[in-house]
């Protein structure tokens, strides 16, 4: 996780860990989707600064740890 104020983020998702709760889609429908089986689909791995808050919320709401946000590198 990063804590610098306004910067981009890189998202990672793990469908094996995904519980299909759909919290990432609620938090950031522009960044995440669910497949027909309910599992996470990452729409954009590289998050622009304007979507940063939504991306962090998705990582926070994800109950299973399947969504993680990282420093872009």
């Amino acid at each position: 996780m990063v804590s610098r104020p306004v910067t981009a983020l890189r998202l990672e998702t793990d469908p094996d860990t995904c519980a299909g709760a759909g919290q990432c889609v609620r938090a950031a429908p522009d960044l995440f989707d669910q497949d027909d089986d309910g599992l996470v689909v990452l729409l954009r791995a590289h998050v622009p600064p304007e979507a940063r808050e939504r991306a962090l919320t998705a990582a926070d709401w994800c109950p299973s740890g399947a969504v993680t946000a990282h420093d872009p590198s």
Partner: protein
Amino acid sequence: MTRPAPDPATDPATDPGPTAADGDDTSFPLARTCPFTPPDDYAGMRERADLTRARIPSGKRPWLVTRHEDVRAALSHPAASSDARNPAFPALGDGEQVVAAELRPFIRMDPPDHTLVRRMLVGEFTVRRVRAMRPAIEAVCAEQVEYLLSRPAPADLVADYANRVSTTVICRLLGVPLEDLEFFRRITSISGSRDSTEEEVGAALGELFGLIDRLIDDKAKDPRDDLISRLATGPLARGEITRHSLLSQIGITLNAGHETSRNMIPLAALALLEHPEQLELLREDPQLWPGAVDELLRYLSVADVITLRVATEDIPLSSGTIPAGDGYIALLGAANHDPGAFPEPGRLDVRRTQRNHVAFGYGTHQCVGQNLGRLEIEIALRTLFDRVPTLRSELALADLPARSSSAIFGLDEVPVSW
């Protein structure tokens, strides 16, 4: 805080552990003082430097986890086991322990068994699938609010509206014919009560499983567009799940899907009637409704005591370590009223922006039907307040009969007029 004297007569089967002092046990579960808010004593437990040890009716002594960060950590930790077959599993009633160990509903399973069952269900409840259910749920609520209005006032918001809405929605999704709307209410009032004996729970669930068993046969031959048909022709036909397990999984989906929203809708309606300024905000700006539903879920926390676990390894938390082998209860209502996570947690604020509440739990067991639950509660409340703008409660809050022994908190009856 209730601090009963040590009782040597109580079953000592559960090892108290080296850190526990008998005189410090809190008798649990605790009753709500106000039907809207989790027990007052949770505040003291959250502020303590260590974990609280409870004594539950079975004589077991699980730890109580109360802080928001700790509840999330304790529910998402890989060592959090939900397996009710473990003797340390802290079921609040003996009936529940035996029946859950035997039937193994997926809420009381661990991976990989849990993962297998959960993945048979999550596709039914995706954000997209649930969004498509909106018109159907609106039609159900519109029909049931007319039923409520057709009753002589005072009518009962539980039996004459919420129970009918929640039962109809979940039965249609599963493909259960709607012949007797009170049937499921009767079953869950027995199966979900910690006062029920093992025999009573077994008999009630036997009745329910008989119905589901017949439906599985019918739908295997003549599948329709519903969940039971898809499970019967898919995982069951392919041998991925046993019939015994499938009955349990459909049974718990029906029970959980109907009891939670049935209890939430009347309580939420009352909470808004008690806070008319909040209801006014919603009337002025209906876009606030989705956030208001999350706030009501947080504020009311009806599933407070459902998250029972056993630590299979030490689980370190900010308030202490749960030792390997011990049972614990992650109190969702305590976490949702933690002032560290939600400023002024006792205030109902439909414009609150923090939405990381744990009303649906946390971790891999977080409610599979939560997206449906949110939408159903929203539409049920909006329909009610739009169609019955003069709705009022006939009883003072303190006089409303509570389902105090139920796993999901709710009121037995809410007489209303208009």
